């Protein structure tokens, strides 16, 4: 049974959907939904990375000292409630995200706090916003953050405060209601069942063609597959490799692969005596079957990547093409004093494809003489151990989620200013794996502030080569992609790498 022409049905697992409040949300699904309910100042191009389009902001200007950005807002925008959208709403939303104490990690790193926002973010007039940087930084990174993080979506201050309770800034109400200016409004959210977005009658722009967008909770990939084949859903997200493969032959369906900035990696803790030895890390590097993992386990979900900066970004280098080579690895192990290998543990999420990668690595490690026991667990157990820096090996996924620039990627993977346990630099994978190179730190700090793009690019490349040579504790295997399968009759459907997919132009052609 085909879905109605003016409704879009999306099959997706809503298990990890936590909140629909833009300031509190985390997770891909909420991000996508809110991208259709709320507006941002600027939007990132879904295809051309590093390109930003005006949205609420007609234009923007970076100050010469690179210490502030001035946005000129449109003056014709109203919220769906009818309230006009002004600079005040943006500033309040910005502040609110920090007030509620959730989200906003990136902006925190840039130096914003709930205290300094009122003085750093100002509105000279109702349609102008000036954002100053708390400390020297690359202003493009801030623009990127505005486009890609939900916390800077603009909330209808008046409406939200009408529903505020006990100083929660309307959070309770916003969990199941929306106060945005986007083309859709949140009609209902039933945990573990569905989220329904309804076309707004008060939308300031051109009315979208689809009347409703329905996210239906379908945890089981094969159920989604059958539903896609029967036309009961229009889009299937998060499907298993085998199901996507099978659907490739169906002419009624199309597939879109969307890249992200996360990498699949094998990480070792350098606090562990074994992995503190460079030779052991070298052995690890050659005990991964990169090709097999990418071709068999990760088609549709990963593409080979052996360096920290994703391909296609300015500053990226071609892969060094490490190969699975047990003999070489054994040599390194022998040099390290482990001619007969050793025993270790691999922590990994009990989910596909993580377990699958871990199992593959377990087998390849065994060929080098390393006997690894797999310990599966949920996110808290696996990444909790990593945050506590108490593990041996971990197979995981991480990095800069959006992957829109080389700096963020390097920051999250190679930078570690303080290698002490109590520094608690959770966001830095290098800290988590106890990897520290003063030289890299300095290089990265300098590169960030380098105004010359060419020079900056060269510096990013140098960092990577140096990193390579030091043999890092984290070996990336693959750049993470997500793949959606959708009905061929969908027009103007462009999945967005930042989970910012917008449906305002999407429609069906039957």
């Amino acid at each position, binding site marked *: 049974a085909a879905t109605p022409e003016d409704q879009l049905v999306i099959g997706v697992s809503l*298990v990890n959907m936590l909140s629909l409040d833009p300031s509190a949300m985390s997770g891909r699904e909420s991000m996508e939904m809110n991208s259709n309910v709320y507006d941002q100042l600027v939007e990132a191009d879904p295809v051309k990375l590093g390109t930003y389009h005006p949205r609420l902001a007609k234009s923007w200007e970076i100050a010469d000292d690179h210490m502030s950005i001035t946005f000129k807002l449109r003056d014709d925008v109203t919220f769906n409630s009818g309230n006009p959208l002004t600079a005040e709403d943006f500033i309040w939303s910005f502040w609110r995200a920090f007030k509620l104490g959730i989200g906003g990690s990136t902006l925190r790193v840039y130096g914003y706090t709930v205290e300094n926002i009122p003085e750093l973010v100002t509105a000279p007039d109702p349609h102008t916003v000036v954002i100053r940087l708390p400390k020297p930084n690359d202003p493009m990174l801030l623009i990127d953050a505005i486009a890609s993080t939900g916390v800077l979506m603009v909330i209808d201050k008046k409406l939200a405060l009408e529903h505020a309770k006990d100083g929660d800034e309307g959070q*309770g109400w916003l969990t199941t209601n929306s106060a945005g200016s986007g083309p859709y409004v949140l009609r209902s959210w039933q*945990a*573990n069942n569905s989220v329904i977005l309804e076309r707004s009658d008060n939308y300031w722009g051109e009315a979208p063609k689809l009347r409703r967008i329905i996210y239906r909770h*379908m945890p089981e990939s094969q159920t989604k597959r059958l*539903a896609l084949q029967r036309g009961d859903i229009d889009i299937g997200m998060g499907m298993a490799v085998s199901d996507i493969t099978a659907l490739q032959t169906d002419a009624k369906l199309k597939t879109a692969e969307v890249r992200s900035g996360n990498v699949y990696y094998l990480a070792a803790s350098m606090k562990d005596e074994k992995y503190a030895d460079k030779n052991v890390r070298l052995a690890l590097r050659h005990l991964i079957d990169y090709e097999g993992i990418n071709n068999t386990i990760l088609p549709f979900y990963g593409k080979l990547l052996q360096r920290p900066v994703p391909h296609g970004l300015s500053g990226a280098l071609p892969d060094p093409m490490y190969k699975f080579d047990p003999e070489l690895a054994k040599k390194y192990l022998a040099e390290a004093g482990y001619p007969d290998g050793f025993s270790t543990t691999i922590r990994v999420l009990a989910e596909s494809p993580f377990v699958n990668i871990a199992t593959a690595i377990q087998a390849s490690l065994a060929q080098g003489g390393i006997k690894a026991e797999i310990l599966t667990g*949920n996110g808290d157990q696996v990444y909790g151990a990593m*945050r506590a820096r108490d593990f041996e090996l971990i197979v995981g996924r991480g990095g800069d989620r959006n992957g829109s620039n080389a700096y963020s990627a390097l920051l999250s993977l190679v930078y570690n200013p303080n290698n002490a346990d109590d520094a608690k630099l959770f966001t830095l994978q290098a800290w988590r794996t106890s990897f520290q190179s003063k030289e890299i730190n300095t290089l990265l700090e300098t590169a960030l502030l380098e105004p010359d793009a060419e020079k900056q690019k060269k510096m990013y490349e140098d960092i990577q080569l140096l990193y390579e040579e030091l043999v890092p504790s984290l070996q990336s295997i693959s750049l993470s992609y997500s793949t959606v399968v959708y009905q061929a009759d969908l027009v103007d459907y462009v999945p967005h790498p930042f989970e910012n997919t917008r449906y305002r132009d999407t429609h069906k052609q039957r």
Partner: protein
Amino acid sequence: MGRFFKRNKIKRAAQSLASVLVTLLLLVTLTFFLGQVMPVDVVSRLVGPDADQATYQATYERLGLDQPIIVQFGIYISRMLQGDFGTALLTGHQVLDDIVRVFPATIELGTLALLIGAGIGVPLGVLAAVQRNRPADHIIRVVTLLGHSVPIFWIGLMGLLLFYSYLGWVGGGGRVEIYYDGLVETRTGLLLVDSLLAGDTEVFWSAVRHIILPATVLGYASMASLCRLTRSFMIDQLSQEYVTAARVKGVSEWNVIWHHAFRNIRVQLLTVIALTYGSMLEGAVLIETIFAWPGFGQYLTNNLLLGDMNAIMVCVLLVGVIFITLNMLADLLYKIFDPRTVQ
């Protein structure tokens, strides 16, 4: 004498009520403290794995997790006694609202499954007992055991593949075609009933098409145990002297089986069925996952894995109340239907 009798009745009722309350309290306490040792970290769920320490700490305090456990427990209990079951930590929804929605979905599925399971399993069990150790018995054993020993998701997916994908006889995931969702007013929460009450036959048939397969699969799984229990109960009864006595009277075999022997196992069977029903609440998780059924089993399991204690507590309490209610109901059934317990 009469007054004495009554006072005893009241005393007994009070006693059983007290013991129920104690069990529930124990249940809540146990859950709460088990929650403390459970390896799930709600805060990191909320803030995401890459959050920094400050964010983490802020959320930690916002949830009141920095208080001593005893204080947290006290606060929780006192709120609960006031009828405030709180909001789910992670989704911010009112837990009670969620339960009111997911619970009827499972009740609807479970009830139909049980009707199917018992409706087929019990007669098969009787047949197996009558035909004990003859081919029919063996065939029934194998067929029902299949339902017991084949992974339920296998049957579920194969059912979907055949009846939904190839034949198109039944609906796919969910309780109803999604675009019908929310079209009928929720009165009982049971979609089949609500749609009929609203007179919306289109929604009703859509709901029927969606429930029939998962209910059958779930029913098949419970059929095995019901069938085997019926069989062994019946075998016990058929060897009783009163069965011979009935035959002596010239009563037909059909009546001997159904009016005499079966009548004696009715209550026993109802007890078993009641308990099977109770275990379906939780046991339906896999079926609910495969059929994207927004039910209680999935809700409980998800919240468990996410570590949302507020939601878990209410679920556990609900399961406890249901289990105890079913138990008491079974006792009551004995009292009403088994003349041997009548004073």
